[in-house]
């Protein structure tokens, strides 16, 4: 059960496009300068496939006085290596820490490219990578093909906890949250005012929910929104989608999750069967949102059984 759940997490593109990717498996990563010494690599607003090689995720790095902190390592060994090459072209300083924001495969399967460096994550993330990592990797091989060549899960080497982390001559605020998964780490760079929100925040793409607890997620969003109101805040790098200079992606993520939760509860209360829930139309506000239809269908699978159980249990 656990195993396939993990395998199924990221899978929506069951029918793979027939076209072959570029033979050189080049992700063409470009470091976007978000603020002084803070950079992000922005992935596509797509599902995993053999053309994008899993580059549907945002990663980033912060250049401190004494070294570089990397945030998430992408979906594959190739991605991690290419990312590290680009980082080296930006700064000659050494990478002193890689942080995995959470245990989803597009955020940690590039870890091998940083095997010579400390890799840190929340304890819950380390445990989840240990239990689910292999199944995640298998699933991405299936979805992304040869882009994954050589990729194996590599566990973080150190556990992180909430609070201030002085690293590379830089002061980072580690914010330990949950909701998208059981352990979601947001990283706020106090010097640049850039918030790396991980997958707690999606921008211009429907959120994914395979391990979501929506009520817990709302609390995390509230905390991140409060931070975005603080004086030093400059920019937000979501886990997926464009960089933002304000809290709009937080509100967008909350709006999707609020609708999703209410809609599934209402459907369960109305006595609908899962197939009827799957065929419901998206509200106008979300019709044009990239991958909204496929993420809605995936979320019904993840979240409707609990809504249904609640509606049935409360009947007596």
């Amino acid at each position, binding site marked *: 059960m656990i195993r*396939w759940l993990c395998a199924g997490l990221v899978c929506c593109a069951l029918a793979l496009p027939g076209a072959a990717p570029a033979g050189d498996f080049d992700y063409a990563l470009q470091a976007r300068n978000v603020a002084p010494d803070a950079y992000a690599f922005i992935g596509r607003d797509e599902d995993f496939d053999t053309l994008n090689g899993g580059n549907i995720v945002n990663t980033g790095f912060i250049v401190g006085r004494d070294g570089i902190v990397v945030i998430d390592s992408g979906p594959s060994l190739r991605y991690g290596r290419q990312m590290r090459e680009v980082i080296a072209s930006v700064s000659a300083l050494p990478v002193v820490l890689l942080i995995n924001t959470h245990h989803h495969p597009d955020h940690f399967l590039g870890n091998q490219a940083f095997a010579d460096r400390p890799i840190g994550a929340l304890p819950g993330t380390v445990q989840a990578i240990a239990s689910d990592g292999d199944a995640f990797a298998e699933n991405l091989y299936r979805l992304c093909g040869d882009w994954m060549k050589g990729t194996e899960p590599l566990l973080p080497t150190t556990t992180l906890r909430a609070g201030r982390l002085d690293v590379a001559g830089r002061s980072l605020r580690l914010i330990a949250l949950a909701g998208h998964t059981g352990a979601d780490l947001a990283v706020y760079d106090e010097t640049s005012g850039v918030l790396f929100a991980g997958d707690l925040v999606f921008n211009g793409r429907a959120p994914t929910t395979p391990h979501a607890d929506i009520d817990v997620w709302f609390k995390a969003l509230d905390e991140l929104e409060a931070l975005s109101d603080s004086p030093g805040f400059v920019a937000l790098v979501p886990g997926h989608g464009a960089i933002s200079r304000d809290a709009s992606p937080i509100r967008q993520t909350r709006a999707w999750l609020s609708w999703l939760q209410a809609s599934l509860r209402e459907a369960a209360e109305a006595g609908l069967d899962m197939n009827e829930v799957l065929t419901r139309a998206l509200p106008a506000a979300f019709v044009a949102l990239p991958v909204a239809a496929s993420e809605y269908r995936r979320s019904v699978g993840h979240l409707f059984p609990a809504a249904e159980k609640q509606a*049935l249990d409360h009947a007596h």
Partner: protein
Amino acid sequence: MSVPARLAMSLLVALGASGTLPASAFAAAADPLASARWEEMRRGVLGGTAAVFDAQVKVLAPANAENPTQVPVTVDATALADVAEVVVFADFNPIVEVLRFYPESAAALLGFRVKLQQSTPLRAAARGADGVWHVGGSWVNTVGGGCTAPSAAAASTAWQSRLNEVSGRQWQLGAERVRLRLRVVHPMDTGLVAGTPSFHLDDVELRGASGERLMRLRLFEPVAENPVFTIEYRAPGQTLVCTGGDNNGNRFSARIAP
């Protein structure tokens, strides 16, 4: 009886009976789902008796099922008259037969979820007043592994205290149309996970206040863990009695208020 044995017996019945059937009953209409296993299904699951492909028997399931342990299926044979029995099966599942239901006074309709091991045709055959199997179906693509994944219950012992716990609720959808949604706590172990024998709900039946039976079901291993059923009938305002049991002799009985 084990499933292979059950299939083998059906096959014997089929072979024994084949000589007595009119040739036209086997008119080799092409399988709309183009499955390499269709002939075996016809001979085994359907006992080799007359079968026709019939779009009036609807099998609604997602074309791409992300979660192979909980693939939603809705079987609707209400367009046929006097359906006595419906068998649901998946050509490429290691355990082919999913369930059988006998609508009796309920509608020939059932919603539930199934475990699939790989992409497969998912079919329902309804035996109507004419004695012929009317076969509908659809293809489900899935990542697979649904039958060999441990049940969630295997991860803890919490389910033991809730085994066969029933929750249910009725909705009046129209003057003559009532829907029941029913959930039973059961691991529904397939026996295909090493060290975990087959352990599944076997029979479930639903009766109205006067004792009249609305529907009877025979369930096999592929029905998803903690089964949830959607059933419809024309008996509003009744407290229903749902009884059933599993292949280890655990019985349950529950009342579901209108």
